[in-house]
Every structure is written in C-alpha cells, then in structure tokens.
C-alpha cells in the first residue's frame, strides 16, 4: 500500500486547497447613482411584501421621512436592510451547511464502526515516515511532531504551487491535476471501499457487476464535478469524495500524529487565509479579481438559483428554486453581489417570500449560498472519525466532537456574516473539537461510565 501512495501525490491535492469559507457574495458595492435607485434597491432588498408592480412613487413616499436627509441616510437604511437580509439568510445558510457536514461525518463514522479495515494499522503514508511504535513517550511525541512538520510542509508547498499555477494562468495544468486526482478518488478509492464493505458484510459480487457499478459511479462523478450536473448530485459526489479521503487519512495517520496534524493545520489555515500574503487568500482574491469561480472540484457550494424577471411576473409557472448549477461557467459568479446595481429589475419582485418567479426572460440570476472548501469537510470528518475509532468512550466522545464541530461551524458562519470576506473554517471548529475530544475522553467518560453502571441519571 505504501508504494502506490508514493506515486500519487495528487491525492494530497484535494486536502491542500480551500480550507476556507467564503460567502457567495462579494462585498456589495453601493451603487446609488441617484437616490431613487438606492431607495428602490433598499426596498427591494428587504423583500417586503408590497406590490411593487405599480409606479415607483409609493416606494418613495413610504420612505419619505428619510428622503429629505439625502443620500447618506438612504445609505444607512440600505446597509441596515442589507444586514437584515444577511442575517435572515444566515440561518438558512447555516442549515444548508450543517446537512452536508453531518452527512459526511455520518458516512465516515458508520464506516469506521462497521468496516474493520479502516481501523487496522497497515503501514503509514510516505508523508509521515516516523513510526509511533516507540518505547518511550517522549520519543513518540517527538516523532509525531516531526511527522506533522513534514505533512504541513508538503501541504504548504503544494498550495503555493497551486496558487502560482493559478496566478500564471496555467489552467490546463491545474485542470489536468484536478482531473487526475478526482479520477483516482472516484475509481480507485471507491473500488477499495466497496471491496472492504462487501467483505465486512460477506456479500459476494462478481467482477462484471463490479466493473459496471464502479464505471457508472466514477463516470457520472467526473461529469458532475468537473462539468455540469444537477446541484444535489454534485453535492452528493463531493460529500462522498471527502468521506473517502477522510477515511484514507484515518487509516494511515498514526494516532498522536493525527491530533498534532489537526492542530497544526488549523493554525496553518488561519494564517493562510487571513495573512495578506497567505496563499489561500491570494487564491481567493485572484479568483474574485478575475471574476472566475474557483475550481468546482475543490469547493462545496450550497447555492440556490434565483431568477428575477424584468416584466410583469408570470404567475403561471413557479418552479422551485434549486436548478442546475453550472459549476464551470464563469459568468455566473459575477452576480454574487446583491443586485444593487440592477435595482430597476427588482421592481417586480414577487410578494411571495420563498419561491422566486421564473419568468420567461431570465435576465439576471442571483446566487445566494455559502461555499465551504472540501478540505474543511475532510478534516472535520477526520476528527470525528478518529474520535470514533480510538476513543474508548465510544459514542459519547464521537457525539461530543460532532456537536463541538457544528457549533464551531455556526460561529464561523456568524463571523462570515459580520465580516463578509473569506474566512478560515477550520480553526474554531477544530479547536472546539479537540478540546471536547480530550476532555470527554478523559474526564466525562469515567463519570458517565460510573453513573451508568449504577444506572444513575443526571
């Protein structure tokens, strides 16, 4: 197993990238060429249930008291409404991210608990050469720190390499690299996973069926991730490859190294995203400057599509908001910002709250969603999976880590709503997760076990 890991440094690649969280909107540029537009944008943005089909005058008289004080007041009311909108959708986004993170963790924990293969020690990755089977505690600690240093430097080098490639527009190379790594994940790792699951449940499967299943799974996955596909299918594939990658890490990282690596990578993430010269920050900024989407294979997006029409609303057809999201199309990313600039079109925004109207002329499309890097999924699942695999307190520790990670994600999203720029998603969650893991395993577990043995409830 070690030898094949050797040739495939592209496997590392999905975990290097995007351990950051970005709001789908770039910071809104207030565009009030005249107060009228600004007030209208403000009104429309707030999703008020007014009939805006008529003339613009009711809108103006409605905010007549602010119209005297000129543009600055309108600006603050617009900002207020913008904030309100952000907070209103903030809760929705939190739920939209909770579900995939939870699903990924469930898949990983279920596999760890049932399939023995992923908890057996069968060698280590080339990136963590030092063994942990040492006689003394100090030596073990030293080895795990050295392993961490090597692993983090590999990740840093790869990330910097990727950012340089992106900056110098070597798109073909990057696409080739991404395609190769997702090929390997979708075919090879799935084959191994399927093999182990079948072995565990003692189910026989012949090779032709296996080839058919894996070929279909892999081919549809490649198309969905790198080209076009239904949003939910793409999300499902991204969750599956994150889970597979996390399982590989759980299997091949020795115990103490895994914890130290988790800690170190959250510190690295913090620096890479927030420091002005951090590679991830430069990647995000370059992508935003060029108005291009960051590679779909590396980011999970919870985007929904909203179609806003120019003419009178077409009350006949009201389709649900989730439509196919073309991951690779560049132009859509421009319309992340709330449509201040396109305020004239919002005149006929429907009074119905949640379902947008799909009119025949789809002039503007607006995405509202939050993006989370796949690296975040992977490391969250590694933490919970390791807790499930190694904790002797079994389920309590796993659950505590799960709750801690979700709360960390919630706090990160809250900060995202406040700061409105790309933020690292790893530090808070991983810190909470690590604190809860160690404290639950060592403190809570004996307490709960003693209580349970006497059948006491607290």
């Amino acid at each position, binding site marked *: 197993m070690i030898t094949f890991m050797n040739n495939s440094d592209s496997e590392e690649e999905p975990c290097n990238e995007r351990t950051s969280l970005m709001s789908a909107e770039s910071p809104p540029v207030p565009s009030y060429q005249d107060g009228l537009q600004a007030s209208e944008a403000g009104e429309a943005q*707030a999703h*008020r249930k007014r009939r805006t089909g*008529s003339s613009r005058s009711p809108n103006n008289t409605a905010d007549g008291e602010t119209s005297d004080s000129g543009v600055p007041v309108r600006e603050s009311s617009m900002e*207020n409404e913008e*904030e*309100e909108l952000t*907070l209103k959708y903030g809760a929705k986004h939190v739920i939209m991210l909770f579900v995939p993170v939870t699903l990924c963790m469930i898949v990983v924990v279920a596999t760890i608990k049932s399939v023995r293969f992923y908890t057996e020690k069968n060698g280590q990755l080339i990136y963590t050469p030092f063994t942990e089977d040492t006689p003394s505690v100090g030596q073990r600690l030293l080895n795990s720190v050295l392993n961490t240093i090597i692993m983090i430097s590999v990740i840093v080098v790869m990330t910097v390499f990727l950012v340089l490639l992106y900056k110098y527009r070597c798109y073909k190379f990057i696409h080739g690299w991404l395609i190769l790594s997702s090929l390997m994940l979708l075919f090879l790792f799935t084959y191994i996973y399927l093999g182990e699951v079948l072995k565990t449940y003692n189910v026989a499967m012949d090779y032709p069926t296996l080839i058919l299943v894996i070929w279909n799974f892999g081919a549809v996955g490649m198309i969905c991730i790198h080209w076009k596909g239904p949003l939910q299918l793409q999300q499902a594939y991204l969750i599956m490859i994150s889970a597979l990658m996390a399982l590989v890490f759980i299997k091949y990282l020795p115990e103490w190294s895994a914890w130290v690596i988790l800690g170190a990578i959250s510190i690295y993430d913090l620096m890479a995203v927030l420091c002005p010269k951090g590679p991830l920050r430069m990647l995000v900024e370059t992508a935003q400057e060029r108005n291009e989407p960051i590679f779909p294979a590396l980011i999970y997006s919870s985007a929904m599509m909203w179609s806003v029409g120019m003419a009178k609303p077409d009350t006949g057809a009201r389709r649900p908001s989730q439509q196919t999201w073309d991951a690779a199309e560049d132009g859509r990313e421009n319309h992340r910002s709330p449509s201040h600039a396109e305020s004239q079109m919002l005149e006929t925004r429907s009074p119905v709250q949640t379902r947008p109207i799909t009119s025949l002329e789809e002039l503007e499309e607006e995405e509202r969603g939050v993006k989370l890097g796949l690296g975040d999924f992977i490391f969250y699942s590694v933490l919970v999976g390791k807790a499930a695999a190694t904790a002797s*307190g*079994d*389920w*309590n520790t796993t*659950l*505590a880590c799960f*709750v*801690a990670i979700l*709360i960390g994600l919630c706090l990160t999203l809250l900060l995202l709503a406040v700061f409105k720029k790309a933020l690292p998603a790893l530090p808070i969650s991983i810190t909470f997760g690590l604190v*809860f893991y160690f*404290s*639950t395993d*060592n*403190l*809570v577990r*004996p*307490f*709960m*076990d*003693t*209580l*349970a043995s*006497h*059948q*006491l*409830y*607290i």
Partner: protein
Amino acid sequence: AFFWLVSLLLASLIWFVSVHLSDREDARLQYGLLIFGAAVSVLLQEVFRFAYFKLLKKADEGLATISEDGRSPISLRQMAYVSGLSFGIISGVFSVINILADSVGPGIVGIHGDSPYYFITSAFLTMALVLLHTFWGVIFFDACERRRYWCLGLVVASHLLTSGLTFLNPWYEASLVPIFVITLCTGLWAFVTAGGSFRNILKCLSCEQEDESRVMMYSALQVPFED
C-alpha cells in the same frame, strides 16, 4: 446541546478531581462522591440553562430590532421548547447510547446478579428524562421571563429529586413510578404555562379553521384614488 455538554464537562472535571484527591479504595466514599458529582452536575445544568436563556434573550432583542415589524421571527416560547428539547436529547443520548451499542452485542443481561430489566428500564428512564428536560425548559424560560423565582426553584428541586430517585435504581417500583408521575405533572404544568387549556385541546382536535384575520388587513389598504 453545546451548553449542556459544557456543563457536563465542568461537572465531570469537578468529580474527577475529587476522586483523584480522595481514597480510591473506600467504596462508600466513592459512592458519596458520585452522589456529590451528580448533584453538582444537576446544578450546573440548570445554571447553563439560565445562561442559555440570557443568550437567547439577547439574540431575541437583536432579531426584533432588525426585523420588519419589530417582532422577532421566533417567539420566546418556541425558543424555550427548542432549548428544552435539545437539552433533553443530548442528555438522553449521552445516557443511553453506550447502553444501546452494548445491547447489540452478544451477552446476557444481569448475569452477575443485577436486574435483568436493565435495558428496558434504561429506555423508559431516558424517555422520561428527555420529556422532563423539555418541560423544564418551557417552565424555566417562562419563569425567568416573568421573574417568578419560586418556579425556578421548583424546577431545580424537581430535577434534583428526579436524579435522586434514580439512585434507588434496582428497586424500580420506587424509582420509575414516581419519576413518571413527576413527568406527567411537569408536563401538565408546562402545558398550562405555555398557554394551553382544555379549550385549546378541544379546538385543536376538532380541526377548526382559524378565522381569516388576514382578510382584514388587506381590506384596510386602499389604493389612492386617482381622479
């Protein structure tokens, strides 16, 4: 759930420290320390419930100020219900999940002389506890809101009583039955606190349509008449 976990963490820290500082061999002392640990845990849970109430109240005010009509989208009662339910779920899950996991594996219950009804009684106790936490959440928040401190005291006392009753445990008649009685009473109290009454139940069961009060609002609006 997070708040409950933190309270549990602190309580187990206290218990752990006390156990380590004491004599391990003395069984009575250890049992006493366990009782002490459980009591501390109950008190800390209630303290954290209060802290959560404060946090939610602040969030409620924030949501109310930025919302369209000056009221927050979630009422405090709904928050009380959700908070109680989540405390109950995490508390129940922590109590019972290891037992459930063990119940899958091969084994015989009570082979060393303990009660053979361990699993089923654990299941019932957990259910009672989850329901109780939900009810306590509703009553607690309402009591804090209206500043009825005797209600608060009563909630804490009933939590302590319930936990204390589980100490009688292999004697299930003395522990399960009173706990279920307490659950029922607390349930009724929470129902009344949340504004329920016999009439409400009847109305709910008869599936009456609510009056369309919205019609009034629309008819109050008039488009300015243009000459």
